[in-house]
């Protein structure tokens, strides 16, 4: 029983199903929540689920971290693919920059209007 749990293909299925569930939860949050903080929290959750999916799908049981040290001079078959990890590092940093910018806008908007509900943001739209 526990042996099947350690197989790479099984773990990839777990990663796919798990991150898809988290992705859906986040997306439902983005679409259904009215509070701006909730929307941005949900967006962060969706992003994290993508990162988990990408790193998890490149993981294989028994392979080491792609770090060249202690006499190992080359990336080879004993290590997991380093490219996704480099990509995700970049993406995490971009994500937090975007998040900080959006929360800045939210705080500034709140100071001017006293409102944090997306349904009550009626400054824009067709004039009557």
């Amino acid at each position, binding site marked *: 029983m*526990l042996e*099947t*749990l*350690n*197989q790479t293909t*099984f*773990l990839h299925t*777990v*990663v796919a199903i*798990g991150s898809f*569930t*988290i992705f859906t*939860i*986040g997306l*439902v*949050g983005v679409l259904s*929540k*009215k*509070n701006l*903080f*909730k929307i*941005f*929290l*949900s967006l*962060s*959750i969706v992003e*994290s*689920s993508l*990162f*988990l999916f990408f*790193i*998890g799908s*490149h*993981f294989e*049981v028994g*392979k*080491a*971290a*792609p*770090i060249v040290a202690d006499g190992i001079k080359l990336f080879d078959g004993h*290590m*997991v693919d380093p490219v996704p*990890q480099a990509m*995700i*590092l970049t993406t*995490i*940093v971009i*994500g*937090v920059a975007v*998040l*900080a910018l959006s*929360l*800045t806008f*939210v*705080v500034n908007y*709140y100071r001017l209007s006293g409102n*944090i*509900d997306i349904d009550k943001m009626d400054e824009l739209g067709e004039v009557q």
Partner: protein
Amino acid sequence: MIGVLIVIIFTALTVIAFWVVSSRDLSSSVIYFMAFGLGSTVLYVLFSAPDVALTEAVIGAGISGVVFLVSLLQTQTKEDT
């Protein structure tokens, strides 16, 4: 062993993600969000991606959580109505 850990943590993450989205109290939402970041840090370590784990711990869980908390304080909102 690693398989059991991954399955357990993934289940926990799903539950935490649901709490983040559904909780009515905003500050506990943010705390759950930081817990979510911590859980994914452990997962990255298990996926043999220690560099991503470090980044996620510092930036994903730490800085974003702090940014959220600070802006919550600035707007003095507590409840998601």
